[in-house]
């Protein structure tokens, strides 16, 4: 038998799990772990804030489909991860977070840099652990990766006291994972599939409502096959963008509060809503009593608790989205176009998602240009606000994992560190963070990380001088009283330069394309400051609490 320290066991088990990159930030209680990492064949990216590490690991996971890994010290290091963990939880991202902890003898005594991080993260993790014995470490790490990546993915946190990391033990392989209470169900019973297929064949006005579950189960091909077979229009949620090609004739774009009018009308008029890997978020449903009033609802999801959580479901199909879609397709036959397809096309012509040009620089225009310059092949991340919604509407996503955004938690400051993680996962690809002038300042310190590791991420700031989304609500619902939403911003160009990145300000439409082309060509981080129309609004817009057909 071999003698190994806990830290060595951690490193070895990470390698066994195929981990090639960790995003982290050191401190006292993780010193033994860092010492073991120093010689390991694992890339460590030092972010400048632990929140950055968590979001970067999350971006890495969303872009690659592999679990993201982050590491922080005890106390403040661990609490700084919390927003990133909660963000990954809301969007079902496979993330494994490791935190240092005070030594076992000091636990529970308010010791220096002690924080009860398993207690704190209980509601925002799929599961978490504190390991109090080095002999349990390898088994726990295997379980953590297994839980994070199977079933409905999500974050798992493993808290490791310093002595557990430094103690040496005779290493014994813990064997395969055995969790008596955890058995994700891959496919529903055949009768249930038959019932669903019959309902689909009977339906005259089907609509597919596709979300993040399609992306995480890798079901984009099956989704397309189903849609084309049924000639069913497909609305993709913010989390589902790219799971169905945005330029496909059957694409409805995004539904919901900031959705396209035609997606929302289709939801209101359909007789069958095929919900695939979605969770009926209030931002999608609007007033719940009026949601899809004429439709039977068929809900496919890996998480049984999502069935019937927010809306009544007529036909639940619990299982892996890809396997369920494949099993359904076998039971279906192609349909011919009819009045429903015509109606959808009329709506699409009548209510296009569009904006007015007025000579000022418009954010929609900038994003359209990013699409053109990158040939639609970039990986886009976003912050949270108006720019996020414009990024959802005006860049056309045709591949899964090409649009990466904080959906459930709506975390300002997510996009830039996420872009760093995406760039690490996808070297050689063009990555853009479409940012707001407010959000970018929430994790701007990560410019140092991008420069440090020569990660050529591009940041396109839609600079409106406002916390624009909040301002929009103040304009519409608070009588234009702009309480504390106007921003006094730094000079983003000089700021980028101070960090060693490139910066450029763009104020006219004419300069947009050349600036973007230069940024994409530059093999270094670039921050573009697009000074846009200050009071542009995101439209269409379903006011909160209204039904989907009440759009501004």
């Amino acid at each position, binding site marked *: 038998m071999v003698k190994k320290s806990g830290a060595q066991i951690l490193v070895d088990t990470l390698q066994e799990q195929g981990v090639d990159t960790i995003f982290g930030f050191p401190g006292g209680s993780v010193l033994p772990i860092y010492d073991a990492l120093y010689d390991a064949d694992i890339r460590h990216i030092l972010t400048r804030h632990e929140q950055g590490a968590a979001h970067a690991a999350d971006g890495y996971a969303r872009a690659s489909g592999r679990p993201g890994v982050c590491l922080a010290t005890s106390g403040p290091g661990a609490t700084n991860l919390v927003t990133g963990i909660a963000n990954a939880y809301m969007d079902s991202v496979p993330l494994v977070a490791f935190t240092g902890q005070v030594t076992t003898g000091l636990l529970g005594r308010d010791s220096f840099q002690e924080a009860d991080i398993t207690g704190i993260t*209980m509601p925002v993790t799929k599961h978490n652990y504190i390991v109090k014995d080095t002999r349990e470490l390898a088994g726990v790490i295997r379980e953590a990766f297994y839980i994070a990546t199977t079933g409905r993915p999500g974050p798992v946190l493993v808290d490791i006291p310093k002595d557990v990391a430094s103690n040496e033990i005779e290493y014994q392989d813990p064997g395969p994972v055995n969790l008596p209470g955890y058995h994700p169900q891959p496919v529903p019973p055949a009768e249930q599939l038959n019932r669903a297929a019959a309902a689909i064949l009977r339906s005259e006005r089907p609509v597919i409502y596709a979300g993040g579950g399609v992306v995480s189960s890798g079901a984009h091909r099956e989704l397309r096959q189903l849609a084309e077979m049924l000639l069913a229009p497909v609305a993709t949620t913010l989390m589902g963008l790219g799971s169905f090609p945005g330029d496909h004739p059957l694409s409805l774009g995004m539904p919901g509060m900031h959705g396209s009018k035609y997606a929302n009308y289709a939801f209101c008029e359909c007789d069958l809503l095929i919900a695939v890997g979605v969770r009926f978020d209030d931002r999608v449903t609007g007033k719940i009593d009026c949601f899809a009033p004429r439709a039977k609802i068929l809900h496919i999801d890996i998480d049984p*608790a999502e069935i019937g959580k927010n809306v009544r479901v007529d036909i639940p199909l619990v299982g892996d989205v890809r396997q369920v879609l494949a099993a359904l397709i076998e039971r279906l036959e192609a349909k011919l176009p009819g009045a429903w397809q015509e109606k959808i096309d009329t709506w699409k012509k009548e209510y296009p998602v569009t904006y007015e040009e007025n000579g000022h620089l418009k954010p929609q225009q900038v994003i359209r240009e990013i699409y053109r310059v990158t040939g639609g092949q970039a990986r886009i991340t976003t912050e949270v606000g108006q720019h996020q919604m414009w990024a959802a509407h005006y860049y056309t996503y045709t591949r899964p994992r090409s649009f990466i955004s904080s959906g459930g938690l709506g975390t300002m400051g997510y996009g830039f560190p996420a872009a760093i993680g995406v760039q690490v996962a996808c070297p050689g690809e063009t990555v853009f963070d479409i940012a707001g002038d407010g959000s970018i300042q929430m994790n701007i310190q990560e410019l140092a990380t991008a420069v440090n590791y020569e990660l050529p991420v591009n940041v396109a700031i839609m600079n409106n001088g406002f916390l624009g989304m909040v301002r929009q609500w103040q304009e519409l619902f608070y009588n234009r009283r702009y309480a504390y939403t106007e921003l006094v911003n730094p000079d983003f160009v000089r700021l980028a330069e101070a960090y060693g990145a490139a910066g450029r300000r763009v104020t006219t439409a004419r300069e947009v394309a050349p600036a973007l082309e230069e940024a994409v060509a530059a093999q270094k981080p670039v921050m573009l400051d697009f000074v846009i129309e200050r009071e542009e609004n995101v439209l269409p817009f379903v006011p909160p609490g209204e039904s989907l057909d009440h759009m501004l």
Partner: protein
Amino acid sequence: MRHTLAVLVENNPGVLARVAGLFSRRGYNIDSLAVGRTENPAVSRMTIVVEGDDRVLEQVTKQLHKLIDVIKINDVTVDEYVDRELVLIKVSADSGQRGEIMQIADIFRARIVDLGRRTITLECTGNDGKINAFEESLRPYGIKELVRTGKIAMLRGNRFTNLNTNGNREDEQ
């Protein structure tokens, strides 16, 4: 309606916090909760009495199932079952009242477990209804202190809620 759930959990530290946190976070009402170990030392059993309609109960069950430490859930209320609770009640009793109190204890098959100069402490087991009635009968004498364990329950006959036994009805997903 009230439902009694028998929930088998891995005997891990924090499992009680996970279950309690889930109920408070999602706004489900717990009427009572009793935890203890089972014939298998690696497994604990929680008996949770929860108030809610079928929809709430379905969500409670599904959300509980999502906890990795939760192994199995049975809603015993849908079957024939026995349930018991233990109560300790300390009542004021001067020597003149003791006879009456002892008679009440007799009727409820309660036991006197302690006798003070001015108090009597009684122990009684039974279902909800019996314990409530017992408490009401003693109220006139002045209840000084009362503690209930929370309900525990078990299916009747050849049906089981423990692991590795057949003939049980595992809760529907």
